[in-house]
């Protein structure tokens, strides 16, 4: 497991060796903040010293931006042939998968944490509940990891980044929409009630919502962590195939 560090380091710094990281971070922060300030977010109109109007868009935003980070994880290595280099170095597939995943996750966590001026702003304007803000950040980082697990897996399935992006987007969209009653009602029409019920438990929104209310339910934490574990396991299988 010692070899995870160099893999992680290379991948994480790799984001900053090209303009990708800067374009991504700026775009993410501009979009997320302007959504909060827009009339749909109502950051000021709500008159509440909290970040709920900021984080409410995160499940939606992640649906687009996490595939943008995840699509290159394996597709790029396969396209350029460096995957052959990587897997003839003395590392196991699991080490490579974990190193790359953790690097992508750290990068996403950095993007989320760079929104700290928003927290400072509500601290300046009012007297927010810092506990809720902390749990919301925790929830956002966990959710980013779960999204990224899905995207890393789809990336391992193809050497074409566009296909990888579209597949990830589709998979993330399904995981997101499972939380909406109109979507689950359609499912209930087509599938037995038990199955539809079980599926709706996989929604990102329901699990993320609790965090934004200041609740850290082990059930939600385990949901995100186990989704990461499962997708990473499939990732190893897909690469060893």
């Amino acid at each position, binding site marked *: 497991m010692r070899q995870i560090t160099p893999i992680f380091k290379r991948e994480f710094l*790799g984001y900053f060796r090209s303009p990708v990281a800067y374009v991504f971070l700026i775009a993410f922060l501009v979009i997320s903040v302007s959504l909060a300030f827009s009339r749909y977010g109502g950051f000021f109109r709500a008159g509440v010293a909290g970040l709920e109007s900021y984080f409410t868009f995160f499940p939606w935003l992640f649906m687009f931006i996490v595939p943008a980070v995840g699509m290159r994880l394996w597709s790029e290595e396969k396209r*350029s*042939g460096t995957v*052959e*280099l990587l897997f*003839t170095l*003395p590392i*196991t597939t699991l080490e490579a998968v974990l190193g790359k995943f953790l690097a992508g996750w750290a990068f996403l966590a950095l993007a989320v944490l760079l929104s700290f001026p928003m927290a400072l702003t509500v601290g300046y304007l009012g007297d927010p509940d810092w506990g809720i803000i902390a749990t919301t950040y925790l929830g956002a980082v966990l959710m980013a990891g779960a999204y990224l697990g899905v995207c890393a897996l789809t990336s391992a399935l193809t050497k074409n980044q566009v296909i990888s992006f579209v597949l990830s987007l589709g998979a993330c969209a399904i995981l997101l929409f499972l939380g909406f009653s109109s979507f689950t009602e359609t499912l209930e029409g087509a599938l037995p009630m038990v199955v539809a019920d079980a599926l709706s438990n996989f929604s990102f929104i329901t699990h993320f919502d609790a965090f934004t209310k200041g609740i850290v339910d082990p059930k939600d934490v385990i949901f995100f962590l186990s989704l990461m574990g499962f997708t990473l396991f499939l990732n190893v299988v897909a690469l060893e195939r």
Partner: protein
Amino acid sequence: MIEVKGLVKTYGAKRAVDGVTFTVKRGDILGFLGPNGAGKSTTMKMITGFLRPDAGTATVDGIDVTVDPVRVKQKLGYLPESAPAYPEMTVGEFLGFIAEVRGFRGAAKTAQVDRAIQLTHLAPVRKQTIETLSKGFKQRVGFAQALLHDPAALILDEPTDGLDPNQKNEVRALIKNMSAEKAVILSTHILEEVDAICNRVIIISRGQVVADETPAQLRARQPGARLDEIFRSLTHGDI
């Protein structure tokens, strides 16, 4: 040093490698010849543990690659075809990464990177990103990467492909200089290369070994004929 026994790899209905068997000793430079698509690269990828063989085994220093791939990879230096590397990294960063993955830290890492850069004459481009390098330099970066940990066995997939005559000469000299204490397999379809540096030749055609001998024995098959004529008569079924 390297022992290959009955390797088989099938892609769909096509048997890319069909029972390839040979051994390479320390001090050998084995030229691996064959037409395009004959199974050279696939065989090498199985020895290096990148592909899993459908049947057969390859052992390096007595370790079976299908049983303990990580230990085999520690002993091998491998230059894949077209020398892939991370284009956004500089030469120094890239070799530093390889050194770290190979377990060198701190001063040992610097020493190994310096040695590899010196051997392959990469000092002038050390701080340049790999994407800005010419083909010859890229190939040398691939070489440096394969040599970095001073492996006992080297596997080189078309190391001189796409290089100009001067660069080819330089690469050949490099391989020859190192060969005394190493086992080297190099694939090529340049027949003159075999004469220039190899002390053994294997010709592979349609996934099978059709000749395994010294360059002199290969010549003696058809006295007076050119190497490419002998090559053609051995591999004529493979188009």
